[in-house]
């Protein structure tokens, strides 16, 4: 009864192409944003349960937000443009390390002068953006093969990016400012003179970036370029005959996707880990992100969030729950059971709804639209 379209007439195309054409949805999203931007920081500030400890912020919400952003990026490429990539982790790494370099100051030795090129450290926020930009450039480069290679071959080919950059950031000491261990510490996360030290601050930074990112990507995918991506995904030959240039569509998808992923990588390093080594962006990360997109729903922004939540939180639950009920199970057994359950759920979900959560939600909405009358 509550969720009805009837009586909501769109008198202009502007209204019809809005992100949330439905009144109820608009209210819902407003409430959600309110809760995210005001309620959670409030609870955290005054240490009110469930945010009495900052576990929820630091270990769940911040990673959730950052990985959601990454998932959105992957979704642009895989979900909207249909170019399967297993190299997302690498682009997170590029974002993180380039942001680190910009944030700590760059010195390039140059052949024409002793001094070389030096760029002083710049504000972390700017550094993060530049990290994203660098990642976008790399994305375009490694996207070029996609003009020729398709499907699973491309998927495997993208692993070249993954392993290559893993190696680069392990081996090229310049990227890690020559630290003996090759592990880097993010510079203090301050913007406009204000130091983002507490987890609430960092949470807000991540939340803002994710909201902005989701908004922009949504705009892209509902507009002309988004339609070009989907056209390429659904039938590239026909798309070309419609006057869509494959290289423009694909490379723009790679650029946008890796930009977003790069930003999320920089946030992962700066706002979440604080100190990291390349292993933090390994092939496992790439697979994890692909999972989020497929479980959440290809070609759905909301799906990216759902997928991220599911993939991130499920394992944690699976291992905390038994210990909470004081079951005398060794962590080893738990870990194995966890991996079994996780795999099982993945398969189950794929069998029940190959199009992921987003699809389930669409069906659910259909239902409640008609509720209580089935027709």
């Amino acid at each position, binding site marked *: 009864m509550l969720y009805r379209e009837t009586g909501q007439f769109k008198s202009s*195309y502007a209204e019809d192409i809005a992100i949330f054409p439905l009144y109820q949805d608009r209210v819902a999203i407003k409430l959600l944003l309110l809760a995210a931007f005001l309620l959670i920081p409030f609870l955290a500030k005054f240490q009110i349960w469930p945010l009495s400890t900052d576990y929820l912020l630091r270990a769940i919400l911040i990673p959730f937000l950052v990985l959601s952003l990454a998932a959105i990026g992957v979704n642009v490429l895989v979900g909207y443009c249909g170019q399967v990539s297993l190299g997302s982790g690498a682009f997170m790494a590029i974002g993180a390390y380039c942001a680190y370099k910009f944030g700590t100051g760059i010195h390039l030795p140059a052949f024409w002068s002793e001094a070389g090129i030096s760029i002083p450290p710049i504000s972390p926020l700017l550094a993060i953006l530049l990290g994203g930009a660098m990642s976008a450039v790399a994305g375009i480069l490694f996207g070029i093969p996609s003009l020729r290679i398709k499907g699973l071959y491309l998927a495997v080919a993208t692993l070249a990016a993954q392993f290559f950059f893993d190696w680069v950031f392990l081996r090229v000491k310049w990227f890690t400012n020559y630290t003996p261990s090759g592990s880097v510490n993010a510079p203090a996360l301050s913007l406009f003179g204000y130091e983002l030290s507490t987890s609430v601050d960092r949470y807000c930074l991540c939340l803002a970036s994710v909201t902005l990112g989701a908004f922009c990507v949504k*705009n892209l995918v509902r*507009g*002309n370029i988004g339609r070009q991506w989907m*056209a390429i995904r659904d039938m590239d030959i*026909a798309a070309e*005959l419609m006057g869509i*240039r494959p290289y423009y569509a694909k490379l723009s998808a790679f650029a946008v996707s890796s930009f977003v992923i790069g930003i999320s990588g920089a946030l992962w390093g700066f706002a979440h880990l604080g100190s990291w080594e390349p292993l933090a962006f390994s092939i496992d990360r790439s697979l994890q992100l692909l999972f989020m997109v497929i479980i959440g729903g290809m070609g759905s922004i909301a799906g990216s969030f759902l997928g991220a939540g599911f993939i991130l939180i499920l394992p944690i639950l699976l291992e905390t729950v038994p210990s909470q009920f004081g079951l005398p199970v060794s962590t080893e057994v738990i870990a194995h059971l966890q991996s079994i359950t996780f795999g099982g759920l993945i398969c189950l979900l794929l069998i029940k709804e190959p199009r992921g959560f987003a699809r389930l939600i669409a069906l659910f909405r259909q239902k409640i639209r008609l509720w209580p009358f089935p027709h």
Partner: protein
Amino acid sequence: MRDATGRDKMNIANVKRPYRGREEEVFEPEPGDGARASDKVTAGQIFRLENIGLSFGGVQALRDVSFDIRKGEIRAIIGPNGAGKTSMLNVINGFYHPQRGIVEFKGKRRNSMGPYFAAKEGIARTFQNVALFKGMTTLDNIMTGRALKARQGLLSQAIFYGPARREEIMHREAVERIIEFLEIEHIRKATVEKLPYGLQKRVELGRALAMEPELLLLDEPMAGMNLEEKQDMCRFILTINRSFGTTIALIEHDIGVVLDLSDRIVVLDHGQKIADGSPQEVQRDEKVLEAYLGTVH
């Protein structure tokens, strides 16, 4: 011709009140409308193929074929299965690159042109077995036809509010006129893969029209349709041609339809042209009769 606002006197997408007449009325051209039956004959070539030879590996798809398409006419390409009709269309809009021969479009001669270039130059087409973007709605499918007319960059699209939104709405209006013309309002928001075949064909036609083409290629537009679907499709084709002056080249198996619709017919058999001329001439041609129509009787 086609500026940022996509204004183009000769196209449905910009005619404010689209023509919605029944079949017999169609033959009376609207005032201020360029295309008349009389000046069609004298109208110059818009497209010309000269001694086209096309082969895949050893297989000769087209052997030394030449023919032209005149501005504003409906040109039919017929022939038995495997005669090379679709290959011909693929050559025309640059999907296949012939090994021999010359392609001339709007006076520009070249050995072949890329699909993107062809589309940019104003050639649109539909496909033998529907090639819609399955995952997208009718609306989005037709909107993709406007891709070439989009002017806004990535950044402005990402921000959306402002120019990008204005452009989006402008294209939407154009597309809505096409939707109205093709009478598919009711499936506007439906995902195309679930639509019945006849409707899919219509959506595909809409997608081609959205490109505001000068030359429209239709590959078996009525395949697998029932009678009234065919009648509708005929009506659309005639309106597009007569009222909006779009040149049309079509492949069709239903000889009746072809004879009624087309101004001139070219007949292919085994990759060779065996006849070319008005419906009457072609009908009388022995070669055609034995090779093709003969089978009909």
